[in-house]
């Protein structure tokens, strides 16, 4: 079963609701006024007709009486006449009848008779009347001179005048028919068009109109009975032609009983017709009033609702993202609401702009950010693709920005980036310049008639960067590398284009920085190769494809193996033995070096525990690994898990770790030293070597790079450098290990120069871990 809600009036507009509510309210009050007015009119009409009926009744009474009086006067002229009396006394019929005829003419009555004491009737007239009037004079009550009789031919009014001589000797009697003409004369007397009718009683005793214009009915009988009962008041009576207000006046017969009734009636419809104009007027006034109210309330409602509707529309528009300023028209609540709305919407729009700006712009440089850049690139690509045009993407990276940030501080770095943004915006004014993050910038260059424009732009940027920039009082010599990719050849979608531009940038950096490189498919192939290698590396970590080889470090002072340097080997199932030079760089780029380094550290310590107590294990640590905040705990865990004495672990770092900032590195080194771990400085003499490092931290050992060792036997200058390094180390109480010793000349030269230990093919290539014990044993024996 479904329950249906009752239908309710719902308005879509406030003004309609107001107008309808006002209209209904007014219509209701109009209806009440109309009803009251109708009742008043009804009552007024009834009272007026009643009053008129009463007046007409009494006028009729007076007329009736006056008529009687006049007729009596006319009759008395005859009855007093001596001659007539004489004729009556002598029973002179011809004389009597001629006198009556003359009287008829004189008094203008249709029928005049004389009735003598014996009831003999003289005079001409209908037999009906003659028969009826014979007994009238003797039955007429004392003091009455008239009576109404009903005969078959109608009702008659009789005027009876006695003939006195001096006693009554007879009666002159006039018979006036109460016919249509008489009634018409009566009706004529009234101010309102009354209908006058004579009612007589039939054999059954019920009343009906003589002239058959009023039919007999029970209601009529009751009405007449009430009137005869003495309460002759105007009242409603249902007649054939409809309701009427009527007044019945009983007309007395000779014996004093009503023998006929005069019915004065006034049709109710006619009574109300007089007020029709008023009713129509009221109705018209009502309709006009209603129209006025509707118009007025609509106007009023508009006045109230229009600002609200405007607010509604403005709120809707704001919802959809457009803002409209509302016109404040008043000082009332609505006006204040509009003002508040304006302020609010302005605030919203302003904040929205800010948020949009924040979302799409870089706060530092105010350049578009990566999100905005990606959108721009996407749409630019779509547009150019449709038109068969090209889009050029330049990716730019500052060279050595990290070093600048570290050495001069972030505020300077930020200022440099801002300045860089300004420079790029200025030079590439015809392009979209965005900061992708860090020191990475990108430029979208739309299709240009000048095909050389990308190259020219890149060159212009590099030329600008050639001279040092003045940032907050610091002269900063920096350069930039630029990679360029051009759609559609270098990538049809934004991801491919960006990737390829990045690859070109990578190549530019690889090619010595400060240059620009266009993307070439070969770059992509190299990138794919690297990606494959990365996947294999992850697999290798998971499945344990790594193992460690160890190269002995021979202690020249004690003539024995003082330790082994752990070297990572990757035995790939299909690639075979992958040299570290191929995969270490990828591992460093992808951060996999951390995990690999952890494994190396654990494994080296684990294997070293099986060695004699004087044999150390040396482990290379990548700068990335070293920089990792969890590095000390990695060492700690490796030591505690294996149970290796800390002083048997020697970690080898290169000078490049100091690029991240000397202070933090030194702090970390001290921390490691405190654990008891030995620290060696690897590849000394290459790269950005600085003697200040040696001063800032007391390394346990300096490893002399193979490039010096190679020529130490033949080249005096090389020998001098090695001697200087050894002397320096000795002065600083550091050990030295010469790397890549391949022949005995080199060995003797190094031994002569006081080098602590050697490492190289001369003594041994790197060996498998399980060979270590045997080597130590044989070496011991050899030395022995």
């Amino acid at each position, binding site marked *: 079963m479904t329950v249906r809600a009752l239908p309710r009036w719902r308005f879509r507009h406030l003004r309609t609701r107001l107008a309808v509510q006002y209209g209904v309210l007014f219509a209701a009050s109009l209806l009440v006024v109309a009803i009251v007015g109708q009742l008043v009119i009804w009552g007024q009409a009834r009272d007026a007709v009643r009053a008129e009926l009463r007046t007409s009744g009494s006028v009729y009474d007076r007329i009736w009486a006056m008529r009687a009086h006049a007729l009596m006067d006319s009759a008395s002229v005859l009855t007093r006449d001596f001659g007539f009396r004489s004729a*009556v006394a002598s029973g002179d019929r011809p004389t009597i009848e001629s006198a009556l005829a003359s009287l008829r003419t004189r008094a203008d009555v249709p029928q005049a008779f004389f009735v003598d004491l014996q009831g003999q009737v003289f005079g001409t007239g209908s037999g009906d009347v003659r028969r009826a009037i014979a007994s009238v004079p*003797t039955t007429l009550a004392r003091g009455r001179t008239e009576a109404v009789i009903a005969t078959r031919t109608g009702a008659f009014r009789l005027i009876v005048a006695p003939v*006195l001589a*001096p006693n009554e000797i007879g009666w002159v009697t006039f018979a006036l028919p109460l016919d249509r003409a008489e009634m018409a004369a009566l009706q004529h007397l009234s101010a309102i068009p009354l209908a006058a009718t004579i009612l007589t009683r039939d054999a059954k005793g019920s009343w009906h109109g003589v002239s058959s214009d009023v039919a007999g009915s029970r209601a009529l009988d009751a009405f007449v009975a009430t009137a005869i009962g003495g309460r002759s008041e105007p009242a409603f009576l249902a007649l054939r032609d409809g309701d009427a207000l009527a007044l019945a006046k009983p007309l007395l017969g000779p014996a004093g009983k009503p023998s006929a009734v005069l019915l004065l009636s006034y049709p109710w419809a006619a009574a109300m017709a007089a007020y029709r104009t008023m009713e129509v007027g009221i109705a018209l006034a009502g309709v006009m009033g209603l129209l006025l109210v509707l118009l007025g309330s609509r106007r009023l409602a508009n006045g109230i609702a229009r600002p609200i509707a405007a607010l509604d529309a403005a709120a809707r528009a704001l919802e959809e993202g457009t803002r409209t300023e509302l016109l404040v028209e008043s000082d009332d609540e609505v006006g204040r609401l509009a003002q508040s709305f304006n302020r609010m919407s302005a605030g919203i729009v302003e904040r929205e702009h800010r948020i949009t700006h924040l979302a799409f712009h870089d706060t530092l440089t105010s350049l578009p950010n990566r999100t905005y850049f990606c959108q721009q690139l996407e749409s630019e690509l779509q547009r150019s693709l449709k038109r068969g045009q090209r889009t050029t993407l330049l990716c730019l990276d500052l060279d050595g920005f990290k070093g600048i940030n570290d050495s001069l501080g972030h505020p300077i770095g930020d200022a440099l980036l801002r300045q860089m943004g300004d420079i790029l915006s200025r030079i590439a004014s015809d392009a979209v310049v965005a900061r992708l993050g860090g020191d990475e910038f990108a430029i979208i260059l739309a299709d240009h008639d000048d095909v050389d424009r990308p190259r020219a732009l890149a060159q212009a940027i590099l030329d600008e960067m050639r001279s040092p920039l003045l940032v907050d009082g610091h002269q900063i010599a920096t350069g930039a590398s630029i990679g360029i990719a051009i759609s559609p050849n270098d990538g049809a979608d934004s991801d491919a284009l960006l990737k390829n531009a990045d690859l070109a940038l990578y190549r530019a950096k690889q090619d010595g920085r400060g240059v620009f490189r266009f993307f070439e498919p070969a770059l992509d192939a190299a990138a794919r190769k690297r990606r494959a290698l990365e996947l294999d590396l992850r697999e290798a970590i998971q499945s344990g494809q790594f193992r460690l080889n160890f190269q002995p470090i021979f202690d020249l002072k004690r003539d024995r193996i003082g330790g082994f340097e752990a070297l990572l080997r990757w035995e790939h199932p299909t690639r075979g033995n992958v040299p570290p030079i191929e995969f270490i760089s990828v591992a460093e780029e992808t951060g996999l070096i951390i995990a690999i380094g952890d494994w190396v550290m654990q494994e080296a310590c684990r294997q070293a525990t099986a060695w004699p107590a004087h044999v150390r294990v040396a482990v290379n640590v990548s700068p990335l690994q070293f920089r990792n905040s969890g590095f000390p705990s990695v060492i700690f865990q490796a030591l505690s898990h294996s149970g290796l004495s800390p002083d048997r672990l020697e970690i080898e770092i290169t000078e490049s770790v100091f690029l991240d900032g000397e202070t933090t590195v030194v702090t970390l080194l001290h921390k490691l030293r405190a654990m008891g771990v030995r620290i060696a400085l690897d590849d000394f003499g290459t790269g950005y070597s600085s003697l200040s490092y040696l001063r800032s931290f007391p390394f346990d050992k300096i490893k002399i790079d193979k490039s010096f060792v190679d020529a130490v036997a033949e080249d005096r200058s090389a020998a001098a450098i090695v001697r200087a390094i050894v002397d320096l180390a000795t002065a600083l109480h550091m050990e030295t290990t010469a790397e890549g010793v391949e022949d005995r000349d080199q060995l003797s030269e190094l031994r002569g120069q006081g080098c602590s230990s050697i490492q190289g093919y001369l003594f041994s290539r790197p060996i498998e871990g399980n060979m270590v014990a045997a080597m130590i044993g044989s070496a011991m024996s050899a030395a022995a």
Partner: protein
Amino acid sequence: MLIHVMRFTRAAAALACSFPAFAATVSVDVIGADGKPLAGAVVLVDTPRKPAGAMKPGGPYEMAQQNIAFVPHVLIVPVGATVSFPNRDKVRHHVYSFSKARKFDLKLYGKEETRSVVFDKPGVVALGCNIHDAMNGSIIVVETPYAVQSDAKGHATITDVPVGGATIRVWHPSIRAPDNMLSQSATVTATGYTTTYTIRGR
């Protein structure tokens, strides 16, 4: 107009006086329509045997006009009597009668003028004045000596009425009957006859 005789009562004769055995007293009470004793009504007793002496005209009889009225209002005269009509008013009168008993017409006559009329038939003569409608009077012309007017108490007593059958008639203008007269047969006994007439008008 209707006159009803509602009651006719026979009563014992009065024995107050001693009369010859053939004469008795007729006593009549007349009561008007208003229930009060009616004065001025004329009560007549007609007997088959008429005393000769009583039938003489006698006289003089006078019906004067004084203060626009007939004086006396009612005059009882025997048949054959001559009645004079002296005018004692300053105005003139025109006395007439249309009564069957005696029709006459005394044309205008002035003050101190007297006309005479002989009434030779029994009956009621209604008198009027053609000038003054309000004036009316009556002359009752009787053949019997037993005729009197009721007194203020409506009482009429007629003595020396012979015993035997008789007709008792009552006249009064208010009686609406031919000649304003009601008649009733009665038997007068030696003890007399007593009756009461009650006139009922409308």
